[in-house]
């Protein structure tokens, strides 16, 4: 698996925000997008998931562009995990199975693996709990477990532990072992703990 971002320029409403971003990820590698607030980190992640079209440049996974792979397949392999998790009104186990309800899904949720991940982030007892009753921090961890269940090649993590205390954040980070990802995190310590190579972003870049 190779994930290549080449001279990507992203923006909103046709106005460029970030110019010519390039990096490359091999299996197990991770990068952290670093830059001031409002520089366009989330906009860049959205373009990588192809939720928005980039203004120019390209992204390839194993040499294939999202256009030729098709958006649904691309997004299951390059998966965006938004900062504010969205649930669909079910219990935790239903939310974890939700990504397997679409035509693009192959197979179903590996329940044993999902339960084990929930245990590891201290939420083993929440399997049957309604998501509406989760705290913000619990919701973030459930969303991470849900994303990991899909088995994407690359995760796009937007402040994945912003609502977590240190201990819970460490447990969540441990789940990411061996996973390839692009991280947005304001905590330098976290970026370093996760061994993410910084990609510096600035308006003029």
């Amino acid at each position, binding site marked *: 698996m190779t994930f290549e971002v080449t001279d990507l320029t992203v923006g*909103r*409403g046709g106005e460029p925000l970030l110019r010519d971003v390039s990096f490359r990820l091999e299996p197990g590698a991770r990068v952290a997008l670093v830059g001031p607030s409002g520089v366009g980190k989330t906009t860049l992640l959205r373009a990588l*998931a*192809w*939720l*928005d*079209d980039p203004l120019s440049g390209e992204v390839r996974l194993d040499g294939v562009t*999202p*256009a030729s792979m098709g*958006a*649904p*397949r691309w*997004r*299951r392999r390059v*998966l*965006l995990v*938004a900062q*504010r998790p*969205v649930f*669909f009104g079910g219990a935790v186990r239903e939310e974890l199975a*939700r*990504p397997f309800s*679409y*035509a*693009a*899904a192959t197979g179903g949720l590996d329940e044993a693996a999902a339960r084990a991940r929930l245990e590891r982030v201290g939420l083993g007892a929440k399997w049957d709990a309604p998501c509406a009753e989760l705290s913000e921090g619990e919701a973030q961890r459930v969303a991470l477990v849900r994303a990991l269940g*899909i088995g994407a090649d690359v995760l796009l993590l937007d402040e994945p532990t912003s609502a977590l205390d240190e201990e819970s954040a460490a447990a969540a980070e441990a789940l990411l072992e061996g996973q390839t990802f692009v991280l947005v995190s304001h905590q330098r310590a976290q970026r370093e703990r996760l061994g993410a190579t910084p990609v510096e972003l600035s308006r003029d870049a």
Partner: protein
Amino acid sequence: MPDGAIAIDGWHLAASAAFVVLAGAVSLGLRLGLEAKLAVASARTVGQLLLVGYVLGWVFALEEPFVVLALLTLMIAAAARAAVQRSTRKVRGAGLMAFSMLAVTGLATTLGTTEVVIGVEPWWRPQYVVPLLGMVLGNGLTGMSLCLDELLQSLDEQRARVETELAFGATRWEAARGPLREAVRRGMIPILNSMMVVGVVSLPGMMTGQILEGADPLMAVRYQIVIMFMLAGATSFGCMLLGLLLYRRLFNAHHQLRAELIVRG
């Protein structure tokens, strides 16, 4: 057969206005502050209806199909405008979509009814076509504006939810069908409700008119059944087609939600 409805002259109209004047006096007495609005609304009712009466009289007398078609087009345009303006959110092109859907469903059901069901000759005879289209448009625009409002509101407010589904690999159809279903359902509620209570709670205006004219109630009922089916069909198809057009506009071929096209007005 009785000799039709009793003719109404100026004195009858003045007498009926007494009720409105009385309501205005009550509003003044209780300081409801509604008397000015009541006066404007009454004046508009008189003005608009008189105008329509003269226009219809003129069109009926002309017996010119192109004039009838022009009037129908004007009615559809006014309905489309009203359908879009009632929504609190806007999307460019919605007016044209509403116009074309109202034109297609309105003309198809109206002409289908006059031609196939009632057998009007010639097909454009305004005495039938104009009031029937008016009824279809009135119901259609209510349904479409509710459908439009619901869809734009849910895609705007639940953008994160829709995009979470897209991020999980949902196709645009998989991500949109929930909001679409709700929008079409909401658009159809008024016509379904009126079908449920028709004849029980209220007698429809046209049927009342026919009975006042001295028509056999059973014949009036048959007309009304045709009308209700026509309205239900036109409103359902109108809402579904408008929903599909909006879906095509708001989700592109890359399975992206173009929420920036929705403008809060």
